[in-house]
């Protein structure tokens, strides 16, 4: 149950994050954080098929997260899902300099230790 939930979270959240990042990149930077402008941005985002897809993927991840939290410790469940950050990166064409790679590698090694 524990590892099934974790696998489901990793797959669905990775897909969700890739779609979310791709969708928001197409939308462009949000400059104005007033409630009206945020509402308008939300309305635009709601029609973005990448974001819609990400919501479905994240919903699956959310229910799997509920299952994982019900059977395991909080300090295991949350850090273990950080594996998604490694997988998601392979699908996006971002320039990642050596400092980011080093930092991200340290984070991932840390997450592995936390999950043991």
């Amino acid at each position, binding site marked *: 149950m524990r590892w099934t939930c974790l696998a489901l979270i990793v797959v669905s959240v990775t897909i969700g994050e890739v779609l979310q990042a791709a969708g928001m990149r197409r939308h462009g930077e949000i400059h104005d954080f007033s409630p009206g402008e945020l509402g308008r941005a939300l309305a*635009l985002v709601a029609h973005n098929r990448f*974001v819609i897809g990400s919501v479905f993927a994240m919903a699956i991840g959310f229910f799997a997260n509920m299952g994982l939290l019900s059977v395991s410790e*909080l*300090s295991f469940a*949350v850090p273990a899902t950080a594996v998604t950050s490694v997988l998601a990166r392979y699908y996006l064409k971002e320039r990642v300099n050596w400092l980011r790679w080093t930092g991200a590698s340290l984070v991932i090694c*840390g*997450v592995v230790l936390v999950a043991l």
Partner: protein
Amino acid sequence: MASESRRLRLKTWICAAIVVFSNVFGNFFLKRGMPPELPSPLSYIAALFEPWVALGVALLIVWQLSRLALFSWADLSYVLPVTSVGYVLVALIGKIFLGEEISLKRWAGIALIVGGVALVGGGSHPRSHATGAGQ
């Protein structure tokens, strides 16, 4: 140009802080209100109406929305490691409020995460691409 960079960095850090805290406390409240067993799909839905779980879900919605905003200008490869400081906070909250045992291995992992976050957030720029003009 320098003030634009400063503005972007400040906006990124404020939004990243909201992302981190809403995720940490959202998961904490979810764990606190979660029944020990969820035997059927219906029990997942029923659990959503527990007060602590509902509060956790509300915070996780804030987390998703703030992440969407952050992704509109920052790289995924920047956002994910920086917001991973939440894993440290989650371990601490688990120990303090839920009485979870944190082994030496887990503390070592936490130290590595902090080091990685400092490297990614301190020495690099949030954005490596030009954002679109909007739809």
